[in-house]
């Protein structure tokens, strides 16, 4: 019997995501994928999946799902107060849903994006090598659209490891979601800001603007002016901090445009992207200047934390 889950309601925006389609970038298609790769991967590993299987990314509010057959799930990322049949359950912990069990969320306590993984992964449309939903192209995931009430979610296959309930990721191994300091490496065009501008970029408090979504965040703060000739368009990456002529930076996120010509004054490092993914419009943040070496140490620490879940599944 293939386990299925019925979507009773979806919340604000729930999409199927995996680790994205980096190969499609040369065709101008955004790489996409989970905004918080750490939480997405952790949820998968907790149920014995490879980190690349499809999860549900739920923004701001959770869905209501009813299990039609027994399945093993895990919830990670933002805390929306998960409940099974009304009783609180722990996030970052694997648990079984039995036939008829109802998974709901009582309300957001912190963060912006929550991930739900199921042992075996969610079945979804594969487009250009990935199950991620691309809303602009209307492809991938669930018919290229957000989930809607009445959808039936099927499990794609067998989990790589046998399922065990109660596997947990300890809090000290998770990213420090409460600390809104985004670590960043100097960008290729940082010198286009004058010394005062460079200092301000890494000292000022920015606020996530209202026009912020999976493509990128507008950062509101001191106006910084980049000088010099117009740049020829070049390939971009998630985490790049662009400085358009308005002087208000844009932080590129998972669904960012593949190329652009604005100066890139900094790049938020891979270890800080999960924290960025959990910010909401109105949240304050700071960009902290670090070296590439420090960024690599931070990346290895998070990769090591995920590795402990992989070992634990043996």
């Amino acid at each position, binding site marked *: 019997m293939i386990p299925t889950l019925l979507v009773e309601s979806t919340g604000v925006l729930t999409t199927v995501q995996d680790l994205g389609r980096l190969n499609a970038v040369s065709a101008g298609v955004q*790489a996409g994928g989970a905004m918080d790769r750490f939480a997405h991967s952790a949820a998968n590993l907790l149920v014995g999946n490879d980190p690349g299987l499809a999860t549900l990314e739920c923004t701001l509010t959770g869905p209501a799902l009813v299990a039609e057959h027994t399945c093993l799930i895990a919830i990670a990322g933002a805390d929306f107060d998960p409940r099974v049949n009304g009783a609180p359950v722990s996030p970052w912990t694997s648990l079984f849903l039995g036939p008829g069990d109802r998974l709901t969320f009582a309300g957001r306590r912190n963060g912006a994006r929550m991930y739900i993984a199921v042992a075996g992964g969610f079945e979804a449309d594969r487009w250009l090598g990935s199950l991620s939903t691309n809303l602009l192209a209307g492809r991938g995931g669930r018919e290229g659209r957000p989930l809607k009430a009445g959808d039936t979610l099927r499990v794609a296959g067998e989990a790589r490891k046998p399922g065990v309930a109660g596997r947990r990721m300890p809090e000290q191994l998770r990213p420090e979601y409460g600390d809104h300091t985004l670590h960043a490496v100097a*960008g290729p065009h940082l010198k286009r800001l004058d010394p005062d501008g460079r200092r301000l970029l890494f000292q000022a408090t920015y606020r996530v603007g209202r026009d912020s979504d999976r493509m990128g965040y507008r950062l509101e703060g001191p106006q910084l002016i980049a000088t010099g000739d*117009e740049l020829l*368009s070049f390939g971009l990456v998630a985490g*790049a901090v662009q400085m358009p002529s308005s002087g208000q930076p844009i932080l590129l996120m998972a669904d960012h445009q*593949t190329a652009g010509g604005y100066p890139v004054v900094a*790049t938020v490092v891979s270890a800080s992207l999960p924290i960025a993914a959990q910010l909401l419009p109105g949240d304050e943040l700071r960009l902290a200047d670090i070296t590439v070496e420090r*960024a690599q140490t931070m990346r290895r620490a998070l990769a090591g934390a995920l590795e402990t879940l992989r070992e634990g599944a043996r």
Partner: protein
Amino acid sequence: MRISPLGDTALLAELSTRLDTAVNTRAIALAAALKKRRDVRQAIAGYASVTVQFDPELATHDSLSAAIKRLAAKRPPMTEPGRLHRIPVNYDGPDIAAVGERLQLTREKIIELHSRPIYRVFLVGFVPGWAYLGPLPKELVLPRRAVPRTLVPAGSVAMAGRQTGIYPLPTPGGWHLIGRTSVKLFLPDSDPPCLFRAGDRVKFFSAQS
């Protein structure tokens, strides 16, 4: 060449700051060579640059920078001229009259100038299927519109600066819309999902004549 980090798992190699076909050819060849490496996850050629995303378990900025310099020093392989696409255009875009007024050109002259060159696809990117084409004849050069449109219809043929292009999807846009074409640029059910590839050539012709 200037190589700078883009965070901890990517870098940007800037070959030049000029819009130049020869530089673009080198960038495309360099990206293709880098893509074959096991430690490279993706390499995208810009107009005059290559953006490389690498596997941090297999490479560092230093090891990859050295590899890029080595590859760039080699003579690029002789490349075949890119495929030639002939694109029919109805030159009746909403901006063609305003463009004519600002440049002091008749509509006929704009059509003649725009459809004369064989353009090069410098870069595919920005949104799915978008291709930056150029260089545009000097007589047609205009800065972008002061206020971008919030929605440009798919198939709009547009120009700005030394560039021209076709909007593949309905998106916001600040370029001058001089015409439209029925040719589909974004082909979501094909792989690759776009008509144009970097290095291809494009010739427009007036569909009315």
